[in-house]
């Protein structure tokens, strides 16, 4: 048990080091979300604080979704096949996919909080219950990274990973996205928190289902 935790730690450390050494990719993603927010801001004629809550909310989550797909799509593409084979001789596939998921969660948390900060800064912040909105962001970061990591593993094996990533992930992420939109809309309107627990439970349930599936299915995926 401790051995496998130690191996997981080493794999996580490898992911972070890899990201840190290729800083242009990380900076690229940070710039991606900031410029996407700014494009949206200017597209609505730079009218601060005039979007209706539902538009404000939907726009933010769509920006976050696109950023997530772009950020996670590369989690299996950036390393060459030979090197991946080397990892598989060192650790079990479950450990590899779990470390990727954890790493992507951290990445998505950073991107989501940065995105939220910039978005609220330029477009105004109508959120009435900020802690609950941040909970929705955390749930979203976990959910996106869990479900998109498996999809990116699937897409990376195909001929044109980038198109396929979008096609495969949009419909599969939708149940999660709808629940997240509901939670964050409740937070936006400052509704009583007891209203949102059901949705929070559903999101967690979806996360658990997808996580278990990832652990079960990934061993079949990497063999090819």
């Amino acid at each position, binding site marked *: 048990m401790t051995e496998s935790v130690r191996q997981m730690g080493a794999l996580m450390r490898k992911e972070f080091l890899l990201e840190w050494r290729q800083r242009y990719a990380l900076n690229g993603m940070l710039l991606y979300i900031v410029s996407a927010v700014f494009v949206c801001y200017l597209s609505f004629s730079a009218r601060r604080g005039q979007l209706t809550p539902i538009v404000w909310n939907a726009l933010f989550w769509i920006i976050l979704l696109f950023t997530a797909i772009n950020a996670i799509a590369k989690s299996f593409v950036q390393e060459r096949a030979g090197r991946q084979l080397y990892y598989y001789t060192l650790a079990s596939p479950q450990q590899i996919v779990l470390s990727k998921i954890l790493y992507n969660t951290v990445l998505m948390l950073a991107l989501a909080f940065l995105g939220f900060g910039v978005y609220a800064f330029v477009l105004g912040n109508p959120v009435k219950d900020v802690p609950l909105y941040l909970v929705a962001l955390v749930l979203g970061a976990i959910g996106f990274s869990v*479900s998109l990591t*498996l*999809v990116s593993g*699937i897409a990376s*094996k*195909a*001929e*044109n990973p980038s198109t*396929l990533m979008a*096609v*495969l992930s*949009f*419909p*599969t992420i*939708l*149940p999660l996205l*709808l*629940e997240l939109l509901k939670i964050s809309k409740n937070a936006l309107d400052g509704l009583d928190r007891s209203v949102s627990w*059901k949705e929070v439970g*559903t999101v967690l*349930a*979806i996360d658990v*289902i*997808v996580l278990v*599936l990832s652990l079960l*299915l990934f061993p*079949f*995926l990497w*063999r*090819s």
Partner: protein
Amino acid sequence: MKNIWWKVLAVVIMTYVIFWGLLGPVPRQPILNESIRNVSFHVPLWFAMIILLVTSVIYSVRYLRKGRMDDDLIAVEFANTAILFGVLGCLTGAIWANFTWGDPWPNDPKLNSVAVGMLMYMAYLILRGSFDDEQRRARISAVYNIFVFAVFIPLIFILPRMTDSLHPGNGGNPAFGKYDMDNNLRMVLYPGVIGLTLIGVWITQLRVRLRRVKVAMDE
């Protein structure tokens, strides 16, 4: 020719369902009126689709366990037939909705969920098309098939029940059986499910044989 009995059964059942569904006695309901006859056609299509999708997933799991290419062929053809049934289910539903809800595609969570589900399975077909290597295609699309099914089931059965929906059995509405159904209708609905499932299996069997012939001719 010894396994022909279930095809005969399918034809007999479907003949009965089509004639008795259109001519048999049905309960009188406000708004629904005669359109309630669509229960015998629209509802069994979805039941049959789910049964076919479950079969497809079972064959995908079997492929991953045993690695026989034939299982992959069967899985994809069951998924194909299920998509066909899904499209037909949408069409019969659109006709029904047009007369009872006043709009062929009302903004209803169940409809939207099904549309997303169809997108998922179309993506499955696209994914299959983007591989050259057969083994690889079979393995990865089997993985995706299982994954998609696990997302599709909560999407179509659980999420619509948590919001308001026009469909019976959702958003706190009682299921259709509670007061709209009577035994006359049930006598057509349940044979319809069996009949359409058999028809689906028949279509799938023909397509699988066609694929097997093609594979044999390529070799």
